[in-house]
């Protein structure tokens, strides 16, 4: 039952906020987020409560089936990511007056959908929970977004709906061949592996902003209110990568191997092409959004290594990096929102010297910036170094370097690219003399700092002791 509670708590809280009269939406959302962390920890560390099954439809056989301990610990790690980022997201941003219901309901719904998708053991609900989480994402961008919010919302909707439909076609073909929606029974398909693998790569890929289906992501994150950017970039986007590992690699391993050259080219475009696009950004939020797209390339690289040589640690490398990236990008958007709140701008050339008046903001942003460019001691490095090693694991020196090794080498250039844009941003925003927008800024309040500190501490813990996450894998 604990597993069901993980979804019911945010859904119930949503209902109370939505239908309740004169309730304090923030407090309820906060309570639900904290409670969910407690339940998640209880469910992870106690056995016996971990699965739940409810038959929804008997023909075809569709169950609301949940199990957090499936997939050798992958779901546990993504569940932890979800509940942590949910708490930080509820604590972040400034809700416009009178919009509390929409604001907090959306955050909780996205959270419920993401958690549901990560712990479902039924293909139908795996897909449906993700769709559920997308709807509030669109609404929040469309109603409370910044800039051309309608246009951005429309674009995101089109992209993600396109990805979802392609994905759905792939999933239905899988269910059709296997005769079941049960994810615990997934095995390699005997027919049409190549076709299905392509559908999955494009479908899941679009949801993770795989090149060339990436250009929705940066404008969406720049426009969305902070909690939505944090939850989508940090948590929900990992759905596509999760799907490729726990569904794609299981049912169409040969199909994915068939498309490996294509996948390698696309992921390198994510890293190098989008990396260059990121360098050229003039606004912090667009830069962060693009950097998030870029970093997806590394996780795809781990998947490629897995497909290529069945690497003994590529899956774990991918999930560790997913966790690290989720925490770090959420923290980045949380702080970018504070920068805009304090200075009224995110244009890099309008800022400067902010470290003088807001030293803790500079420290926290520096911390997360260093994490995202892979500084050792912070979580992302542990994931990245494992990814790079997994890329070389299959190399037999008697042969020439294989395509995955060459891709790994090119991908490592990304560590230079990300340092270029991140240090440039830090330099422009925090260093130098103060400018008109930054000279009267007040330091961060405790409430401002809290979500970033929660996320920053986790980056440090996982970075210093990666086994804290790796222990969940078996």
């Amino acid at each position: 039952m604990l597993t069901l509670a993980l979804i019911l708590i945010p859904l119930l809280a949503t209902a109370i906020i939505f239908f309740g009269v004169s309730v304090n939406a923030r407090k309820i959302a906060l309570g639900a987020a904290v409670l969910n962390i407690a339940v998640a920890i209880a469910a992870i560390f106690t056995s016996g409560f971990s699965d739940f099954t409810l038959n929804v439809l008997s023909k075809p056989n569709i169950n609301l089936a949940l199990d957090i301990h499936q997939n050798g610990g992958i779901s546990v790690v993504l569940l932890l990511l979800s509940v942590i980022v949910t708490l930080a997201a509820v604590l972040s941003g400034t809700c416009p007056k009178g919009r509390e219901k929409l604001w907090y309901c959306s955050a909780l719904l996205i959270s419920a959908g993401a958690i549901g998708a990560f712990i479902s053991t039924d293909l139908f609900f795996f897909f449906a929970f993700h769709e559920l989480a997308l709807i509030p994402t669109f609404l929040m961008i469309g109603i409370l977004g910044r800039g051309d919010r309608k246009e951005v919302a429309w674009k995101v909707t089109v992209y993600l709906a396109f990805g979802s439909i392609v994905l759905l076609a792939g999933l239905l073909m899988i269910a059709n061949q296997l005769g079941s929606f049960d994810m615990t029974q997934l095995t390699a398909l005997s027919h049409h592996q190549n076709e299905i693998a392509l559908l999955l790569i494009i479908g899941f890929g679009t949801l993770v902003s795989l090149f060339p289906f990436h250009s929705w992501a940066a404008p969406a994150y720049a426009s969305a209110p902070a909690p939505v950017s944090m939850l989508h970039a940090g948590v929900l986007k990992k759905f596509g990568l999760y799907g490729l590992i726990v569904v794609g690699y299981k049912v169409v391993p040969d199909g994915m191997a068939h498309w490996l050259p294509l996948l390698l080219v696309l992921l390198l475009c994510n890293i190098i092409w989008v990396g260059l696009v990121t360098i050229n950004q003039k606004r912090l939020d667009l830069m962060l959004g693009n950097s998030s797209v870029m970093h997806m390339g590394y996780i795809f690289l781990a998947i490629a290594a897995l497909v290529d040589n069945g690497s003994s640690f590529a899956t774990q490398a991918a999930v560790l990096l997913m966790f690290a990236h989720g925490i770090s990008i959420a923290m980045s958007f949380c702080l970018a929102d504070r920068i805009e709140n304090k200075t009224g701008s995110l244009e890099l050339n309008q800022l400067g010297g902010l470290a003088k008046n807001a030293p803790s903001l500079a420290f926290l942003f520096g911390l997360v910036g260093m994490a995202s460019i892979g500084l050792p001691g912070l979580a992302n490095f542990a994931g990245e170094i494992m990814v790079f090693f997994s890329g070389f694991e299959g190399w037999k020196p008697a042969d020439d370097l294989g395509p995955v090794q060459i891709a790994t080498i090119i991908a490592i250039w990304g560590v230079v690219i990300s340092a270029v844009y991140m240090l440039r941003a830090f330099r422009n925003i925090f260093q130098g003399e103060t400018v008109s927008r930054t000279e009267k800024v007040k330091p961060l309040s405790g409430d401002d700092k809290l979500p970033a500190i929660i996320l920053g501490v986790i980056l440090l813990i996982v970075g210093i002791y990666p086994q804290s996450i790796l222990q969940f894998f078996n």
Partner: protein
Amino acid sequence: MLLWLLFILPLASAALIHFVLKQNNAGLATKLGTLFTFGTLVLAILWVFNVFSIPASWSWIHFGDFKVNIGFVDDQLAKGMMIVVTGIGFLVHVFSLAYMEDDDAKARYFGNLSLFMFSMTGIVLAENFIMMFIFWELVGLSSYLLIGHWYKKDTAAEAAKKAFLSNRIGDFGFLIGILMTWILAGSVVFSEMNGAEFIAHGECLAGAAVLLVFCGAIGKSAQLPLHVWLPDAMEGPTPVSALIHAATMVAAGVYMMARFFGGIGDAALQQIPATEVIAWIGGITSLVAALMATQQNDIKKILAYSTLSQLGYMVMAVGLLDPNAGMFHLYTHAWFKALLFLGSGAVIYACHHEQDIWKMGGLRKKMPITAFTFIVGTLALTAVPFTSGFYSKEGILHAAENHPLYWVALGVAFLTTFYMFRLIFVAFLGEAKDDHAKHATEVESRMFGPLIILAIMAFASPFLTKLIPGTEAPDIHFVMNTTTILSISAFAAGFALAFLLYKGKKEDPVSIPLFRNKFYIDEFYAGIVKWFQDLLAAVVHFLDEFIINGMLVGGLTRLAQGTGNIFRKYAQSGNLQHYALISGVGILLAIYFTVFK
């Protein structure tokens, strides 16, 4: 366990200063940092005398075939290096107590110094390549933070960024080299590397791996072509330049190569001709940097180019497969170059932050202790017989015998003497050329104390054989042979030329714009960044926006918009319903297929 304490103490100090004491307790913070560093020095000395044994390692990552330990080496190479790091680290802390007294962010300064001490300790103790890479990056961070200490100054902020990025470019190669070594040598642990396996797949692959690993050293030790960050790094406080950008961190590249070569073994290395490339890069760096140094006017810049040049010597020795000679020079150089940098710090402090040597002069009389110790450092750097620099430079010249680089090394010896005595004649002798220099007074004991200790080390260090890093003790007997005679002649020629050109001069009689402008390499790189990277980024951004976003996806959007318009006719409401509708389509389709199929 004491080795763990040696490893953890600086981290504890950094954490306490940054998170507990902060600027409000700056006085305590500075004392704490200095005290903890002294603690590490004591522990390092105990380690040298084998008072404690090596503790068990700690498993950092262990999954599948990927295992990384945080574990320690226990050999003379590490012990000697540790003495250099903690010894100079402690003296620099003491010097900083006075030098940074009035800085309004000295807690941050001392916290970052502690962070550096921690990172550097990690490099020295690392038993495997990944651990070394971890701390390699962390010294990069502490260097970035300390160069940018005065972050409000644009030049300091830019210099910090440049240092970090140059190192990142080197680390790109370094990381690939580590990956190749992992497969070729069968391990990333230095003591478990298999040299025979390493070269079993041809000298080409092995050579590529060695050179890629060396890329890390090119960045960290500022060798050509990534040397440009080091002179700019002089924007940091001068004690930082002494510790990080002269004595320890920049020498980490040499230490890393010595450790790596130790792991691969001589037998294998001799079959890899690519090591010749390392020797030439070192040799060319030492020559080019020495030429640049002859035309600099900023006292710290002269020393910075001198550091580049001396690092080139060390790298050259490593490339000639004599890492012990390189490490011996690293060791002697660390003491006398720290002496010179701290001496320049004392001068800058006394002259109210004037760094131009042409505005100094006559400091010998105003600051006798500083001037005397500075001259001692100069004698060691220019390898006057019986100074420490003499013995270690002999070692390098011997390593280069029968090699064309021998003549390069001798040429550099001549240039070194020339530019150092140019500095001495202009800044310390003659008449004061500026009011600041006229009113300069000797610095206080917390500053000249370290200078005196370092000056003693500039003579004594080769004889403290237990402290010298390396696998075998260097030969420190004075024997008159051809190399000695040539080396002394180079000194004499350099000194004579500096005397003739610069004695009593008020302005520079020589002008070589090519050297003064650093061979225009910095401008060349700025051009590359501007015209290649930034332009490429702009072009890619344009393509991304207008082709991928505009056409490919725009088509999709229009298609969907068309469909949306059909729905709109029936729904008659704004866009919002469409968002929900379109995303709900997925669910509807799923239900349709599952129920009606």
